[in-house]
């Protein structure tokens, strides 16, 4: 049983303008769960992770691992293992010594250390590199050593701080799958920090979105995508980002150019922020219902093409996903309509909160 529970945990950097890097975080990673903390830079996600590791003070609230309150414990008494962004391998030690360091400190016998290290090395395909120094390894191998150093200890929690951001794109995709598979196999509670929302969506059992130190929403990837709780989550999750337009309400709907879109919720008079994902829009024929879009940029990705354009009478850009084989040309006007009204999200323009969320 090792769940990690933040209860009103805050980290405040003192100074003339004291900064609440993490502000009253209430979050719980269940036993064996893979929880991803995601957010833009400066959102406090790394700080939150380092608080659980004991590398940052907790100024308010508590953190518990399992049923122990660890708020005041030093890192070495928390039974955690951490993987750092820079890997933080000990440069003067061989791969074997790097992995054995923590076991040696615990007073494990030499024979046992050897067995454990070799097991971990085998699991991570590092056996032939055991006697090399970190500087003689490639980026991907170093990353695996950092993972190995964490798993030999069999800790109750893994903490990973952007462990893939120093790898090239191809290796990142591969390692992403490996880490997720390894975690499922070991069933060790894991908190994983990333700024990459694709990583967050593909790896996490649940994803917690942070912004300016405040938790925005913590839910399964599907739920985050399907029912974002506020405008920030709506814009952050999904690539390219959701189109968000603030429009006046007119008889239970809004007007997108000449197209009237019925809102899925009952809205009062005034304005609402309407969110439609690029993949919920598609080009339609000239005579059909829709609105006209002046094409300003076309991003061709092969299978799909993303068309950036402006709506007549609006400054905001609208992005539409189209078929990659026949993308529209720059400067053309295309007619676009939502494929399904169910995929229109409505938010309060003042508070940014979702309207109609139960």
């Amino acid at each position, binding site marked *: 049983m090792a769940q990690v529970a933040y209860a009103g945990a805050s980290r405040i950097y003192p100074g003339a303008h004291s900064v609440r890097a993490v502000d009253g975080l209430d979050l719980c990673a269940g036993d064996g769960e893979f929880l991803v903390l995601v957010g833009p830079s400066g959102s406090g996600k790394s700080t939150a992770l380092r608080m659980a590791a004991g590398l940052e003070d907790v100024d308010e609230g508590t953190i518990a691992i399992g049923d122990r309150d660890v708020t005041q414990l030093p890192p*070495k008494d928390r039974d955690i293992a951490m993987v750092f962004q820079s890997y933080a391998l000990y440069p*003067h030690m061989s791969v074997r010594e790097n992995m054995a360091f923590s076991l040696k400190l615990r007073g494990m016998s030499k024979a046992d250390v050897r067995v454990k290290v070799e097991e971990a090395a085998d699991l991570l395909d590092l056996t032939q590199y055991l006697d090399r120094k970190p500087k003689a390894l490639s980026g991907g191998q170093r990353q695996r050593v950092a993972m190995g150093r964490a798993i030999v200890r069999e800790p109750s929690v893994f903490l990973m701080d952007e462990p893939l951001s120093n790898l090239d794109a191809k290796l990142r995709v591969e390692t992403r799958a490996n880490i997720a598979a390894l975690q499922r196999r070991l069933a060790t509670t894991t908190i994983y920090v990333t700024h990459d929302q694709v990583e967050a969506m593909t790896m996490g059992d649940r994803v917690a979105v942070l912004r300016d130190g405040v938790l925005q929403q913590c839910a399964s990837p599907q739920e985050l995508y399907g029912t974002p709780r506020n405008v920030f989550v709506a814009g952050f999750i999904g690539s390219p980002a959701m189109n968000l337009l603030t429009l006046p309400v007119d008889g239970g709907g809004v007007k997108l150019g000449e197209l009237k879109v019925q809102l899925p919720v009952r809205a009062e008079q005034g304005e609402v922020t309407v969110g439609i994902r690029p993949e919920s829009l598609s080009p339609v024929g000239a005579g059909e219902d829709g609105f006209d879009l002046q094409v300003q940029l076309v991003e061709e990705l092969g299978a799909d093409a993303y068309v950036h354009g402006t709506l007549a009478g609006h400054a905001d850009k609208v992005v539409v996903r189209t078929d990659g084989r026949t993308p529209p040309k720059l400067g053309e006007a295309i007619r676009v309509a939502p494929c399904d009204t169910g995929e229109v999200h409505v938010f309060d323009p003042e508070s940014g909160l979702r309207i109609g969320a139960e």
Partner: protein
Amino acid sequence: MTTLVEAPQSAEPPSTRTRSRQRSAAWKRRAPLLPALLFTIAVTQVPFLVTVFYSFQSWNMVRPGSQHFVGFDNYVDVFTDSVFLQALGNTVTLTVVCVFVAMLLGLGLALLLDRTFPGRGIVRTLLITPFLILPAAGALLWKTTMFDPTYGLLNWAFGVEVEWLSNYPLAAVMTQIVWQWTPFMMLLILAGLQAQSREVLEAAQVDGAGRWRTFVSITLPQLSRYLQLAVLLGAIYIVNSFDAIYLMTQGGPGTASTNLPYYIYQRAFEGFDVGQSSAMGVVVVAMTLIVATFALRLMFRAFDVSRGVK
């Protein structure tokens, strides 16, 4: 087939021509460096060769016309001269003790400075000051304000009346040199401490290492290069100490605090014995080279700091 036969033939004739052209191009590129090279040779190697030449002669400037070759006599004299041997011993003691103590103090101060506290910039500047003072000024400062039996701060502070410079001449000189060189060691080691990755230290913490363990297993091995450099540079400078001895004790009382540079100075410019002092100079250079190339390397291999203290 024809191309195969032709290839070696066509490769041969240009080889000599291109080689000479390459050589002249290389010389053209290096030519601007020549003045610096000639200057370096003129001011370092020529005097050394002249010194070697003098060391085979019996030549005392007090007796003009006495100059003649004596072969290795001067070198035999050097090794049977009890004062030379004493000066050699003093030099070794001075160098080893000063380098070691200055390095330990420097390490301690660097560790204290490697954390944030209010006024850190001022403290750092103050700690560096001894290194910025002219060595001669530093020596006079210690002689008059610290060690002086009548006005000295040491006697006043401890409430004693000790003639520091007469009773403990070598220790007094070493104190001044340590004072002067500790900031140098501190700066080098501080640079090493600050070059450490913070994440590596944090990883050690998470791995279960306490402060002492982290220092011994992670910090010290990573510092080893900086420590080696500090020892090497410190030793080179301290072997050559002259100012402190000349100004504080004049090598005395008797020859109690004479080191090699000071003894050579005495033989050359007070005894005017050119041959003898040249031989000593050559011996000292040879010994320094041996120490610098073999002894230090051996020392570091023996301790093998870079693999961590087990």
